[in-house]
């Protein structure tokens, strides 16, 4: 059901772990729904110097986290913000329809981490466009 790319990123996830003195940390998801994603960012000169993650979730959730952190490393914060879930899915060479929400979660985790960084640095948080997907799909 998963592409080889997904399986590779699940079996050998990149960037697993914490960044102790992270500049921004974002946690999204809900354990009740079976997935929580936390992304840690190290940001210098408006560039994502490092990104790490911890994820409780299915194969797609882990692979999405792994891919998302790979995608944003080295980017400007603005570019990182613009990393869409679609970019994650494409980089993973596809996800099963029912797992698309994992990629959305990854996008949201990046946003949350960046906003955390912004708040810590006295900037306004950027408003999220997405609703919480779990609300929509009625996971209790």
């Amino acid at each position, binding site marked *: 059901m998963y592409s080889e790319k997904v399986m590779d990123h699940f079996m050998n996830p990149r960037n697993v772990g914490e960044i102790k003195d992270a500049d921004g940390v974002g946690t999204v998801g809900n354990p009740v729904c079976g997935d929580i994603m936390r992304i840690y960012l190290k940001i210098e000169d408006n560039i994502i110097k490092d990104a790490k993650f911890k994820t409780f*979730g299915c194969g797609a959730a882990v692979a999405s986290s792994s891919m998302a952190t790979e995608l944003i490393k080295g980017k400007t914060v603005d570019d990182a913000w613009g990393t869409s879930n679609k970019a994650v899915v494409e980089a993973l060479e596809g996800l099963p329809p029912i797992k698309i929400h994992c990629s959305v979660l990854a996008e949201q985790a990046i946003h949350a981490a960046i906003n955390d960084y912004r708040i810590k640095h006295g900037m306004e948080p950027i408003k999220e466009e997405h609703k919480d997907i779990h609300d929509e799909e009625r996971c209790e």
Partner: protein
Amino acid sequence: MGKIVYMDNSATTPTKSEVLEEMKPYFTEKYGNPSSIYSLARETKAAIEKSREKVAKVLGANPDEIYFTAGGSESDNWTLKGIAYANQNKGNHIITTKIEHHAVLHACEYLEKHGFEVTYLPVDEYGLINLDDFKKAITDKTILVSVMFANNEIGTIEPIAEVGKICKDKGIYFHTDAVQAVGNVPINVKKMNIDLLSLSAHKFYGPKGVGALYIKKGVKINPLIHGGGQEGGRRAGTENVPGIVGLGKAIELAGESMDSHIERLTKLRDKLIGGIMKIPYSKLNGHPVKRLPGNVNVCFRFIEGESMLLLLDGMGVCGSSGSACSSGSLDPSHVLLAIGLPPEIAHGSLRLTLGDFTTEEDVDYVLGLLPKFVKRLRDMSPLYEEFIKKGEESCTAKK
């Protein structure tokens, strides 16, 4: 393909080669339609009746009380809808449990949309129904009680004879979904006062796509599939002769080896459970003793089930999970929720079901892998991180 350690025998079993051998001639040589009158047909007719006798023998029923179907789901749907519509004049109330298979639950939901009322009995932390709850649920409109013999996820064996006795006293039809029980638990429909019983061949080393419904003589039930006069006019369709022959052979084998099968699997099961319980923050789901001989169902906290399945699959181990992710929905197993697990813990369940081809080596192999995989996934889990930081101490799975 590399090494395969198959521990998903509750999902399905391989067809035993003895069973396939019995089936083969009925595809290419003995292919006559049993309803016809020539010799080629008489021999398939006879083969079906022989299978019917074998099923009857293992269940303690009469052969003319056995009706062949396409599997457990059909048998369950036939019972629910067939009894409901044939006995509408007596009442519109059905009692079942919260932990039934979806074939029963979704048929009940369908009936609820069509004027029937259904009581879903709760279960305790082990998955057992409470007989007092049950008795209180009975009304004078109750026409059918459907309580599964053994649960497919957590393996809990329900007090079927007791339920049967109560139904008999009240004159209410009693159906049990014994899809997981047949071949794994001794069953006697007469002694246990069962009026209808569903079974499916592929759960006991027979072929997929064939099952049976035991219907006690005299029970009033509509057909689900109308048409030709097959199965005494109660279930139409050209008989799946090879499948029925396979079902007969498989149930015969299961009946013959029941005792040794149970003894061997119970030992392996308990060894596997014992080994797993050494992993911290793990919990056995279901009843420790009133449990299918091959069923192991555990929760590893802070871990999501599908991830565990993928890691196991990478090492050739086939298992399953009540995790939402593996079932195509976002909600975790209704059974795990019914026994009181919080959803986040239910997501971390792992079911390993052992069978006749499982060896002690297989169990050791899996016990060698699990601690590593649990550690790996926990190291990646933000829930575990928080838990360690907060210094929580005990693994209490109940809310």
